């Protein structure tokens, strides 16, 4: 974090900073579709604003990324880091499709400002499986049980479940249902979803006890 400005300090961009900022933005512009045109505006409108270049810890990797102050984590993940497994179903914290883990706790990434995740550990669905491709036990269980239909909600459910199991590794069906009740599925096969995630909990215990 030493290469970043203190967000609390008064920061007035100089012409040199502005040029640096534009160059940096240019370097990521091929993935920065949503925000390209706003690059200079954010600087001009925000004396005392936060540094835009952040280093995020995503799925165990250090990812350097240009982030506007009003940018949500879901947008950063999807449009700047290419992690499209995190879905936007409502963009207003109603459906949970964008759930990710921040320091092991499930959050709606559509409603988390990316800047607030500095120094925190972010995990998305892309980071669940081992680097060698071995599926996480919860993923394995969902594959076995054909646990979801369209699966647009699935990554959110997976992250919510993995997060919940960290606090309660041996839940009852009812407890797990409560734990993931902030996630909406419109194919509505909740029974099979819950069955597959309970199986995921069981496989997780087996792996952890092995």
């Amino acid at each position: 974090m030493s290469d970043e400005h203190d967000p609390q300090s008064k920061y007035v961009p100089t012409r040199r900073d502005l040029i640096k900022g534009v160059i940096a933005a240019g370097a990521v512009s091929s993935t920065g579709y949503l925000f390209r045109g706003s690059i200079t505006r954010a600087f001009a409108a925000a004396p005392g604003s936060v540094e835009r270049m952040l280093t995020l810890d995503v799925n165990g990797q250090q990812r350097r990324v240009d982030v506007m102050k009003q940018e949500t984590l879901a947008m950063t993940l999807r449009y700047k880091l290419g992690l499209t497994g995190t879905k936007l179903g409502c963009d207003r914290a109603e459906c949970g499709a964008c759930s990710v883990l921040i320091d092991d706790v499930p959050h709606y990434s559509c409603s988390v400002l990316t800047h607030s995740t500095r120094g925190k550990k972010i995990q998305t669905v892309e980071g669940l499986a081992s680097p060698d491709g071995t599926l996480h036990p919860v993923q394995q269980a969902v594959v076995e049980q054909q646990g979801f239909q369209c699966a647009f909600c699935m990554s959110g459910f997976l992250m919510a479940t993995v997060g919940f199991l960290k606090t309660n590794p041996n839940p009852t069906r009812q407890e797990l249902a409560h734990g993931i009740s902030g996630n909406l599925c419109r194919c509505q096969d909740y029974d099979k979803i819950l069955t597959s995630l309970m199986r995921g909990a069981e496989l997780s215990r087996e792996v952890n006890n092995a």
Partner: protein
Amino acid sequence: MPEFTNGNIPVVTGDTPPVRGKLVGQDYATPDMVAKVTGKSKYSEDFRADGMLFAKLLLSPYPHARIVNIDASEALAMPGVKCIVTKDELPGAADYITDLGEKIEADKRSDVGLAMEPMYQGEPILALAAVDELTAADAIEKIRVTYERLPFVVDPFVSLRPGGPNARTDGNTWARPEAAPGEEPGPLDVVEVKWTEEDFKEYAEGKMPMGKPTDEWSFGDVEEGFKNAALVLDETFATPNTSHQALEPRTCMAYWQGGKLFVHVGSQSTIQTVPAVARWMNMSEDDIVVISEYTGGGFGAKIRGTVQIVIPAILARKCNAPVMLRASREDEHNIGGARPSVTGRVKCGFDKDGRITALDMYTVADNGPYARNGDYSNAATMVSLLYQPPAMRWRGITVLTNTPPRTAQSQPGGMQGITLMEPLLAKAARQLNIDQVEIHKINAPEGKARFGPPSGAGAQAYTTSCFMKEALDSGAAMFNWKERAAASGTRNGSKVRGVGVASSTFVGGSRGFDGLLVIKPDGKLYIQTGVGNLGTGNYSDSQRVAAEMMGVPWEKVVVTWGGTNKNLPWSCASGGSQTTHATTRAAHAAATDAIAKLREIAARALGGRPADYLVGGERVYRRGGGASMSLAQAAQRAIAMGGRYDGHELPEDINKITATSAKNMAGQGLMGVARDNYDQDGRAFSFVAAFAEVEIDVETGSYQILDFLAVADVGTVIHPSALGGQILGRSMLGIGHALGQKWVYDQHLGIPLAKRFYQNRPPTILDAPVKMQWGALNIPDPETPVGARGIGEPPVASGCCAILNAISDALGDEIFRRAPVSLDMILTSLEAGKPVTEPMTAHV
């Protein structure tokens, strides 16, 4: 007991031996599951293209207005803003020539994606493309639109009153003009229908007015049926408007390359989206590529993509850059389609045993402002099938309103019609002192069951097969119905338990699509499909039929789907419960063609006649032993022989899209390609019986579903786990209609008050029944070669109505006259001793 369930229930089969092979009837993981759990599966919003622009929509603030002027100069002058598109630049609806050469004339009043006379609040007026979404959103704010406000209406009955407002300047309903005697009536047209004050005289008492309908039919002697009845009920009931609300919004990304239009979009039919886009864009099918590998739910609202595809397509052409239109959750309320509310009045006569003697049904639907929605009519057809009235009259009208366009939603019309009937049937059983399962059985369809209005020749259409009674019996046994029904209504402190049963039906299949597969010299079976991938498993499940028939292990099957640049055949859409029936038939036809060719090749290479050879175990072998060859060798020979064997000569009756794909694959191996030309006596329908137990707290009005079971008559089971997901998932969709899902509109301002999930309340995992079970009879349909039918639609109404019937069984008939049943409805009705919520005001 059903053969397939999600519990460990002993296996008992139906009359016909079930088909259960190595693949058919077995669970497996579909080939897309690993991509899905690892986040690698790409939905429409997950694609990027270099230089991609973003589009934003400008929405009408008024429920009905004419646009006088648009001033976009300030917006277009902003840095980063590229261009706008209005309705004038859209091609508009084009005529359509079907496969059979039949011309379907375009409806000039259909929804084309943008409007200069917006007819509902939130209707898109223009779209703007800019380098990023924030700039586009800022620019939209800078556009000045001058509106001339027009009269509007959001309630069908308000529009039908004398002097009531019309949703369109040209009328308030669709009808065929009356024809002179002996002449055919003209095409559907928008007309004005107003009822009289006299028609409305019972409205205040909660009885639906029944003025002049636009449609009606009847069969049998209805009056005679009522005369002979031991009990006649006359009930008014209303079902809610509900958005489809697939979790994936209808985002679309479009670009042009070498004169071709590429669209990335969620669709229920990859291949059928091509002619749809061709029609909307008024261009050749040959110049359109649709990429739709994964679709995040549809429920009828993405059957052939969605008309809004034209917006990024036109913007992309104008700006010469890829354009993504990201639909928001609120856009989904506006342009995402919805099931129309149907208000109905049903007069029904019963004999002392509960058998219906006559049925007189009137349906009024909330159509939205555009094309005629057929739910008001489908409602009656499904009721005529499910309860087999010996005499029936139906009258109906679908009334235009200034609310978002309606689209077929799971079990369109059937869901509403059955929901008008089921509470009435349950009430009749209580009044006649008949068991609820028995009254469903005595009225249940059976075998080649007749339905709908008689055709010109006087005959009714009929089903291919029907085992509704068996489904009811199976379910009653699994649910331990008798014992639980005896305890229904027993109070324990403030809690009352009730049990309910409901039956349901819908179309279970279409036919006439193509199958396309190739056995390559690597010994693998490559199967192509143009169906959409909604996660129901169909794109893969149906191909297991072909693999099973040819004895190819699943590991050696490669299924290709999801892009019309990947040589896909003309396939059924994934919707309307047609798919399993249609795609298993197409797979069967292609496999049959391939097997015939394999036997010919073997006979020519090894001697004897084709009939001497069989296909199995990855080989073509001589009956009773002797010479054989592997499929890989046969594929090699097919290439050498050319002609029809490797796809250089094709059958003449296949769709031109299939023919193009087959030509592209010619010479790669032995090709199986055929149209499904199998005969069918009757029309395919599927059936479901559902059972529920609820527990209601009479002090708070809240209730919980403790137990739910649905048993399906769906023919041969192809993929048990996927089938179970559909039965219970679609049951939940119906249960949502009982629990709380609905639209709310401000009657005076014409604006929606429930656009978001937390307001219109689709069920969450905590609303799901504590225990859920499913079963399937697995009795093959005799009229289709694989015996399998579809299942998506039928569980919806039975899911909804099992809950409604359980509530009334616990608390009596004086609680609700509309769905959903909210806890305040229960509390206030209990207190008043009569239903306090009137059934007719729309959108409350």
